[in-house]
């Protein structure tokens, strides 16, 4: 079935989103994986003689520093590449964590209903009354700075994104005849949930996962921007933005480049998520055939 979808969808501009999304994410992931081989310099090596160099192609640029240097003479390209490592680590770990908690609770709430649903629903209400940034700052204060705290904070904040959306989907699926049939045949709750309901909610789950990865990249940037993520000398995109803000008038490039990195990464995840939603969602497919 998957193959048939692919063939049909390849003709559409819509799957173009998936292709472009995968390409963008692929580039960022390879930057992250191969940062030590790709980076021309040590990202933490300071050189106070060559500070705030513009990119190599503009006047006064040095070809040894392709994208210029920051206020401490560190190579911007190398810092961007190593920053991708932080961003991708957080994106993958945090979004899988949030998905695991959020979708488990969503399936329990939607499948069992009643008290379980009520309890999980109220927990989501409490969480939703916090702006996510505020909650993650409170959590970061409790957990202390550092990349593992960032991951944990995002998991603890963003599980509700999965829970809210997926619960509704589970509710719809649970009422299907084939689920009732499975129960009648004698499937256990666990087997019904994993074999009958999960496959139906999987497309939405994958879509949400992709979008959550983009959100995690943004949150990591925010937290490293306010100095709560990696150490001051380590490379993270938010940290680079915070540094560049101090030398706004001398070098706009230092600000633009990490912003561009964040934007491209998030765009990749969003295009992927959007494209997947369009190609995987059976209701959307039906609507198009009408």
């Amino acid at each position, binding site marked *: 079935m998957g193959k048939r979808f692919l063939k049909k969808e390849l003709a559409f*501009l819509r799957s173009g*989103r998936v292709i472009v999304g995968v390409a963008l994410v692929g580039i960022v992931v390879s930057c992250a994986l191969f940062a030590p081989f790709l980076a021309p310099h040590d990202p933490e090596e300071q050189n106070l003689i060559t500070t705030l160099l513009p990119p190599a192609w503009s006047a006064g640029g040095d070809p040894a520093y392709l994208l210029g240097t920051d206020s401490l003479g560190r190579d911007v390209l190398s810092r961007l590449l190593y920053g991708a490592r932080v961003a991708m680590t957080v994106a993958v770990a945090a979004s899988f964590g949030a998905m695991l908690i959020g979708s488990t609770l969503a399936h329990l709430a939607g499948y069992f209903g009643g008290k379980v649903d009520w309890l999980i629903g109220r927990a989501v*209400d*409490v969480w*939703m*009354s*916090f*702006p*996510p*940034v*505020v*909650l993650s*700052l*409170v*959590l*970061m*204060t*409790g957990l*202390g700075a550092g990349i593992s705290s960032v991951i944990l904070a995002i998991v603890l904040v963003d599980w509700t994104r999965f829970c809210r959306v997926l619960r509704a989907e589970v509710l719809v699926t649970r009422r299907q005849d084939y689920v009732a049939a499975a129960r009648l045949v004698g499937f256990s709750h666990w087997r019904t949930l994993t074999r009958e309901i999960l496959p139906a909610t999987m497309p939405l789950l994958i879509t949400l996962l992709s979008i959550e990865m*983009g959100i995690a990249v*943004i949150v990591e*940037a*925010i937290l490293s*921007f*306010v*100095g*709560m993520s990696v150490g001051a000398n380590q490379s993270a995109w938010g940290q680079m*933005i915070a540094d560049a*803000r101090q030398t*706004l*008038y001398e070098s*706009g490039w230092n*600000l*633009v480049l990490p*912003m561009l990195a*964040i*934007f491209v990464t*998030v*765009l990749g995840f*969003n*295009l992927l998520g*959007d494209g997947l939603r369009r190609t995987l969602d059976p209701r959307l497919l039906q609507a198009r055939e009408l």
Partner: protein
Amino acid sequence: MIVQLLGLFARRLLVAIPILLVVSALVFVVLRVLPVDPAAMSMPPNATKAEIEMKRQEMGLDRPLPEQYAIWLGQTLKGDLGTSIHFRRAVSSLIAETLPATIELAALAMLIAAVLGFAGGLLLFHLRGTLRGEAADLGSTVLMSAPDFLWGLMFILAFGVVWPLLPFTGRLASSFARPVHTGFLILDTLIEGRPDMFLDALKHMVLPATALGLAFSVPIMRVLRSSLYEIDHADYIRQARLRGVSEGRILLRHALKNAILPTLTLMGVQFGFLFGGTLLIEVIYSYPGLGNLMVDAVRNADLPIIQAVALAYAAVVLLINMIVDGLYLVLNPRLRTA
């Protein structure tokens, strides 16, 4: 209808109070697992262990956690939010100074988000099915990938540095003495009868509010577009079309009225997020509001402020949700007859 509105607000209040209680307890517990010792932080570095221990007792940190929480809750209900460790001032007065600034900024940003969202949603719907529509749709995905703080930074670079058009730090030029009546600068400058100062205050808000509003307008656009899509297949729209009613009139008089409701629900959630979004925008624009207070407090591990500000954010979000629910009731005739 007023009775119904009051009933709704009373019901929402009954839900909001337990939520706020749980929120406050959560914040309290999270902050108490902190690796730093607030007592030691509020003392000079050469304080002896005995002195710190005395301070701990004075601050009540030696008592069991539930008791600490009960004391804090009792004081909070009396309006005493404690004293900031860093600023050595009452937290309630710090919040009273900064909250109006944040509300002002958020309100303008919401207005911008609503206007852009509706205009964009109508445009996206109008262009449906065409190549330009596909491009606009793709454009909205691209726009959505730039979060509010990236817009904020981009605007600073573009309209503050490269093309110095608008100010991008603080609420008011330092040449003005800030009038204090309500705390809302826009109102205060009008009360003072100073149009020049009013304009300056407004200018300071344009970039941060637009950055926020722009980021939050995209989801509004997309939901309005898809609810218009759904309604477009409804019988009464087909009827109107058969009667020869013009497309513009169908859109504005028939479709929009019904499409507005799901959009409004989303806007309620969005505005809650937007209010949280002010936090980083304030930091970027050195705008003296709740967000800057919070980030400073987090950097200084200033627990009384963090607790109080987190609670203030939650309270405002719940209030926004309540107002949106009220609006929903006013705008949806189907809910009114019951």
